[in-house]
């Protein structure tokens, strides 16, 4: 049975503020337990939250960068639930009037680029951290409230991703974008980027309709690779579960509740209870166990969550005017998608090359532009940067800002290579030497004695010598094996230590061979 995979992602990113959303406690990662709390974030009676100006500002910046519509008027709501990591017994979040909605993000996969819709982004507070304490057979939980009240931006995508690879690309695009504009460091190990994935399958039926498997919300996804693995696992699991349960008769296709998804018809699943009646199978949550590489489906929710949202009376609404938005748009500068497009149009780079450069971030693109303009050959500049510079940086685990070779020097090297016809092997030698010594390309070439042989007469002598010394290759060439000329050319290149202009040698060689 062929199926379509439907994936929607909810991403939480921690904003780069010094203090929490509603109080002045520090948001620094790794502080001793319960050392960054106060009566406000501990939810003591009689305290009042006050909105962090920088947190709101960063949220707007992120939403603008995600092409969202920004609401001129926004408010906060209480989401009520009881859990030990939530001392107030409610989370201050946004319900019906989020500050932004209706955005989009461009993603890049092996299949090309696609735009994924964003339903909304809203600003809320984080909960505390729970640790399980299995000492003394008590199985208690320990709570650290340092993270309580940390500003989070929740970004909800449309259910528009169709492969695990697209989900991975979406997360990478969000991470790049938010890091570039300085909204979040998106460090997944520190929990500043977390992801829940909603996934189900639409399985094609002989009559042209699709059966929708129950939606599973996979939680606890802490790495981008984990998201990809969890989704791949979950897709296979749901396909097998559907087949197994339809075959056994435990599940039935529920034609009494047909629905529509985009432009096609879907029908849900119903399960057979012990008394023989059918009831809809509701959405369930699943945990992802990174260690064993499996999702573990937790109990299905009997009814929709009831958070009894109501307007937060302790916080006043916030308004956003066009002046602020114009200012933010100007300050954001060029975003990755626009940069990618410009690299293609301005420098004639392929979509692949432009993608590789823009994924490395703004500073990297700026480096490329200096090299390209300095040497006058954008394609060659891009090749050197992607093939050589990137591996140098990766080997030495260096950021582009700490690059051991200034962009101007790489530009000079590429220009010089062309000017004197240096072959790739020699050029790489010079490149490595420039990094080690910090000398200019001219200094290195002088020192190494890489002087090009440009004298036609001298080259002609060498070509004749080569023909005399390679009678077998010459005979082969005469029999029509044009490849044999390479062996003779190789002789000349060795004689000149690779410093002869290959085009001149080729021309002279063919002329001389014609005379033999």
């Amino acid at each position, binding site marked *: 049975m062929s199926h379509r995979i439907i994936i929607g992602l909810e991403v939480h990113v921690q904003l780069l503020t010094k203090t929490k959303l509603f109080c*002045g406690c520090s948001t620094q990662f790794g502080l001793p337990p319960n050392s960054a709390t106060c009566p406000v974030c501990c939810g003591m009676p009689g305290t009042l939250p006050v909105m962090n100006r920088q947190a709101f500002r960063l949220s707007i910046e992120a939403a603008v960068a995600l092409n969202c519509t920004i609401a001129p008027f926004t408010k906060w709501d209480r989401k009520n639930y009881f859990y030990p990591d939530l001392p107030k017994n409610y989370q201050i979040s946004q319900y019906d009037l989020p500050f932004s909605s209706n955005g989009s993000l461009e993603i890049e996969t092996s299949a090309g680029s696609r735009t994924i819709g964003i339903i909304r982004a809203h600003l809320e507070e984080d909960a505390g951290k729970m640790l399980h304490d299995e000492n003394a057979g008590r199985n208690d939980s320990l709570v650290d409230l340092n993270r309580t009240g940390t500003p989070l931006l929740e970004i909800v995508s449309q259910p528009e991703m169709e492969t695990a690879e697209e989900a991975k690309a979406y997360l990478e695009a969000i991470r790049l974008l938010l890091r570039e504009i300085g909204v979040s460091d998106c460090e997944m190990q520190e929990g500043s980027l977390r992801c829940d994935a909603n996934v189900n399958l639409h399985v094609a039926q002989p009559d042209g309709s699709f059966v929708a498997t129950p939606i599973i919300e996979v939680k606890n996804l802490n790495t981008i690779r984990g998201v990809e693995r969890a989704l791949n696992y979950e897709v296979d699991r749901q396909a097998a579960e559907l087949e197994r349960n339809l075959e056994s008769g435990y599940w039935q296709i529920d034609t009494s509740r047909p629905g529509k998804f985009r432009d096609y018809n879907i029908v849900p699943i119903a399960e057979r209870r012990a008394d023989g009646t059918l009831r809809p199978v509701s959405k369930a949550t699943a945990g992802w166990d990174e260690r064993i590489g499996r999702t573990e489906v937790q109990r299905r929710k009997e009814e929709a969550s009831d958070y009894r949202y109501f307007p937060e009376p302790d916080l006043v609404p*916030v308004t956003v005017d066009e002046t602020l938005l114009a200012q933010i748009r100007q300050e954001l500068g060029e975003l990755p998608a626009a940069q990618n497009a410009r690299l293609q149009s301005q420098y004639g780079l392929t979509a692949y090359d432009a993608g590789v450069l823009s994924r490395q971030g703004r500073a990297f693109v700026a480096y490329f532009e200096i090299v390209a303009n300095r040497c006058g050959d954008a394609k060659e500049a891009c090749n050197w940067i992607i093939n050589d510079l990137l591996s140098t940086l990766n080997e030495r685990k260096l950021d582009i800002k700490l690059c051991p070779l200034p962009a101007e020097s790489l530009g000079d090297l590429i220009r010089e290579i062309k000017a004197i016809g240096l072959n790739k092997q020699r050029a790489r030698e010079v490149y490595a030497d420039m990094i080690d010594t910090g000398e200019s390309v001219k200094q290195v070439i002088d020192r190494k004695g890489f002087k090009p042989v440009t004298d036609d007469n001298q080259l002609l002598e060498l070509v004749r010598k080569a023909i005399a010394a390679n009678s077998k290759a010459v005979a082969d060439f005469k029999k029509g094996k044009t490849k044999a000329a390479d062996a003779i050319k190789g002789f000349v290149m060795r004689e000149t230590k690779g410093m002869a202009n290959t085009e001149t040698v080729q021309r002279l060689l063919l002329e001389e061979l014609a005379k033999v």
Partner: protein
Amino acid sequence: MSLSADEVRRVADLARLELSDAEIALMATQLSAIVDYINQLQSINTDGVEPLAHASDVHDIFREDVPVVSLPPAEALANAPARKGDFYRVPPVFGE
């Protein structure tokens, strides 16, 4: 009574409260009185009145992103029913 015993049971469940049948009955009476009292507001004609997001007319109140000194852990944990080191200790929680 505006609240049934089942509704009270549901609200108690959401609030993680375990109530006896007698308590449920008592709560249903008491909570119904509160709900009925508030429900009087429903009789007001609000045609043409714009929805209100907040009782106050004030907007845009912010604080600057400047750190302040937090409570020392000993003080923060002073009222904790149980603790282990500088963590709050709570009974195990299963599911949600």
